[in-house]
């Protein structure tokens, strides 16, 4: 009995150790950091670019910057928008992720590629513009002469707003405001979808002066 037992211990003890070894051997320490990722969702810099349709060299830029992306530092609105009275401008954007300052990424191209999921909305001081009139479509009121002048449309013929047209009022304005909001509307965007559909990609308010 004792001898048998001893044999068993030897035999099965070895099996136990072998099996244990197999189970554990595959566990090894490593020292790798995660691979670098190309941040595709973060915006740090948005620039509004107003170009005078009559004079391509007359360009007004207004910049907004969130220096640390997802970090807690406050958004900075770096410029006021100062436009000439009675002038027509085309508005477009430069949208960047500059978390890595040496290699900023252009998010604008990505929005253009997915223009059937995006739309820009606006609100501004009442009658700051003669075309469009009113105070913009963020409040949902977009009829007639108050309709925003979207220049571009997506594949479904719905407005996008990467390019819009603006004619300023002939009377000056000081301390006005201009708010632009980009909505991301995957599977939601239709001809009747509005500012409250989908989710907000950016929502920025600038001071507006017309002189």
């Amino acid at each position: 009995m004792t001898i048998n037992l001893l044999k068993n211990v030897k035999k099965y003890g070895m099996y136990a150790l072998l099996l244990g070894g197999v189970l554990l051997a595959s566990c090894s320490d490593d020292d790798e950091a995660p691979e670098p990722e190309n941040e595709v969702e973060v915006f740090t810099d948005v620039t509004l670019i107003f170009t005078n349709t009559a004079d391509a060299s007359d360009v007004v830029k207004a910049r907004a910057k969130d220096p640390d992306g997802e970090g807690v530092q406050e958004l900075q609105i770096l410029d006021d928008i100062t436009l000439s009275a009675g002038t027509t401008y085309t508005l477009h954007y430069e949208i960047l992720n500059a978390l890595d300052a040496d290699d900023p990424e252009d998010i604008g191209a990505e929005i253009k590629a997915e223009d059937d999921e995006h739309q820009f909305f606006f609100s501004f001081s009442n009658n700051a513009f003669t075309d469009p009139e009113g105070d913009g479509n963020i409040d949902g009121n977009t009829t007639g002469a108050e309709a925003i002048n979207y220049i571009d449309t997506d594949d479904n013929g719905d407005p996008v707003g990467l390019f819009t047209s603006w004619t300023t009022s002939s009377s000056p304005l000081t301390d006005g405001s201009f708010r632009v909001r980009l909505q991301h509307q995957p599977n939601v965007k239709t001809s009747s979808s509005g500012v409250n559909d989908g989710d907000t990609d950016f929502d920025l308010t600038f001071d507006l002066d017309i002189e």
Partner: protein
Amino acid sequence: MEKYLLFGLFLFLACLCVHPTQATQFSDSCTYKIQGSIVDAKTKQPIPFAAVMIKNKQQGVVADKHGKFLLDKLCGREHTLVCSSVGYKPATHHHDAHHKEPVIYMAPSASELKSVVVEGEAIVGDMQSIALDKIDGAELATKATRSLASAIGDIQGITFISTGSNVQLPVIHGLYGNRILIINNGVKHGFQNWGSDHAPEIDITSADNISVLKGAAGVRYGPEALGGAVVVEGHPLNLSEKLHGNIASGYQTNGKGYHTNAHLGAGYEKFSYHLGGNYLRMGDRHAPDYSLTNTGMAERSANAGFRYHLPQWDFKVYYSYVDQDLGLLRSSVAESGNLFARSLTADEPLIIRDFSYDINEPRQNTTHHLANLAIDWHSDLGKLALLLSRQINQRQEYDVRRNADLPIIDLDLRTTDTRLEWSHPSFGGLEGTLGLQYFSQNNDNNPGTGTTPFIPNYNTSRFSVFVIESIQKGSNLFELGLRLDHEYNSVRGRETSQAIFRNDYSFTNVTASLGFVRDLSAHWQLRTNLGSAWRTPNMAELYSFGQHGFKTQFGLWRYYTNENGELRTDRVLTEEDDAAEPERGYKWINELTHQKDDHTFTLTAYAHLIDNYIFDRPVAVIGTIRGPMPVFIIDQADALFAGADLTYSRTFTKNLKGTLGASYLWSQNIRKNETLINQPPVNINTELSWKTPSFLGLDASKLTLQTSYSFRQFQAPRTVTPGELISGAVEITPDAEIFDFKDAPEGYFLGHFRWEWGLGSLGGQVEIRNILNTPYRDYLNQMRYFADEPGRNFLFTINYKF
């Protein structure tokens, strides 16, 4: 880790070498005795004069009129008993010297029950003074479509915190997540256990039973059992058990869910095996007034066990696989503060679509593999148990975002757990277990998410020793448990600029537990346990950075306050900044049980102090390019929990039984003297069950009516809406009083009904959950911000056993 491993194996070998000298005590003289008792599996009454035979031998005995039997003058110490009595299914049982008196439960021939044998083996908790509740296989079978947390949520004092219908985590006395250890087949379930939106990947149909330990069970199971432990045990793999199995299938109306599971097993003289599998599919669940879009789920699981038995030796191999695809409510996603604000005030979820089985973003896809090998060796020196296990957990989460086809979280977590335990023989009445444990985890991010990893890559190694001893003195049982842990972490992560940060740090801690059990009289029993436990902050609590769901969240080592009192996140902290301390908990739990005639009464009362309790709280609204966003930080405070659970059962007649239960919990942040958030509200519940007389030729039929009332959480923090924060109507500073975004939901009453029936090998049930189709919101469900809970649900299950 090699040195720890070697140490463990040396010890194992050392113990093996001791044994031959002792083995001589295993003499072949025929003096061995087996005594036990025989009872009716249905009525639990003794069966008089049943025959107990030793298989393949001419030896046997007839039990006395109290169902007790004694077999003596046996040669050898392992025998297969065959027990028979007229009108009952025969029972076969393999008995060895290392188990206490067997109790043989014989099933009447004309019933769906199976004859089983229960041996007086030590319960899983080891610390017998910790309050323990158990759910057996029969009860689990009635809950096949429910999650682990929901299945144990019917226990008094246990509830669950959830993120929708598919992601549910157990809550024991107000604690959840990393403070509740989940033990699956003997090992800590290694999964992404952070936040309330990652549930354990465990298929309850693979479990034989589930035990819940309500005290600090950290001595046996290690850190993280601060609030208790949930112990899931697989098939027992009994020897000498003929081929058996079951096939079950079911359908539920809410979510048009269906499931099928099958189990098969057999035990022979030297070995036994078990195989099982489960498939579960559900579509969108439905609240009383609308569809809960994207709440479908799919689950596939398989498990297999094999046991090989030799005199004194027992080898068990177990493998399980679970694959889950879980949908989360579509309307719960808000990338901006504006949308979140609108979601909270809307009467209905903002996105409601027609019913579908489709699982779209947001969703979670996980697979979990568990393999373990357990070797037990019994001798007069006690029992030596070696457990080796390995788990692989792969998780991908998809979010609604511009790049929805890429996972936003893609993690592989590998866990190994090695344990060597020695349960020594009684030494002057002192019984106990000594153990060594080596535990390691390796977490890696898979590239290609298009976002900076929310959780860094890390390796954790922990080496532990523990001892649990108990001594019985008259009607008193005293217990002591001690444990020493040393944990080492190596972390590598990326900042949003993609710059690498690294850190190596370690913690050492001692855990203790003191227990006392006293039989006050024949009918009264008192248990009391004072336990300490600790837990290191997990990786998410230390390192989370940025947006996850609707929150922007910063871990303890990702934010600091600069000299101007401003919050800053541009630096990764280390242990030298003293910004994070391990949690230390002290729990005192008492249980008083009274059992007499038709009455059973259990009162559990507890107090729990946790130093450096880790929680997340809103701290500010910051301007971002997306508009104003609520910001959360992980913070620490000292917290006190006190509460009581009460259960009173009464057997009115042989067939009619009633139970009344209540749970109460009070909690407070004692450092700031304010309430905590997400604590379970007061609950009162009743259950009435009636075994009906036979009808329609059925063998068994039982009706159960359950009701419960959950009160409004009167201890909820004040409410500050996102709108008020965005507009600046309410100013929040880092030191401001805690708040929540929405009022705690109103109290609600629920009724459930169940009819179980049996006919020979067939069994089944019809169940109605939420009979009154009550619209309600559960305070512990994160989705309460957005949608009601599911409405009325009819469940039909049929089960064939052989």
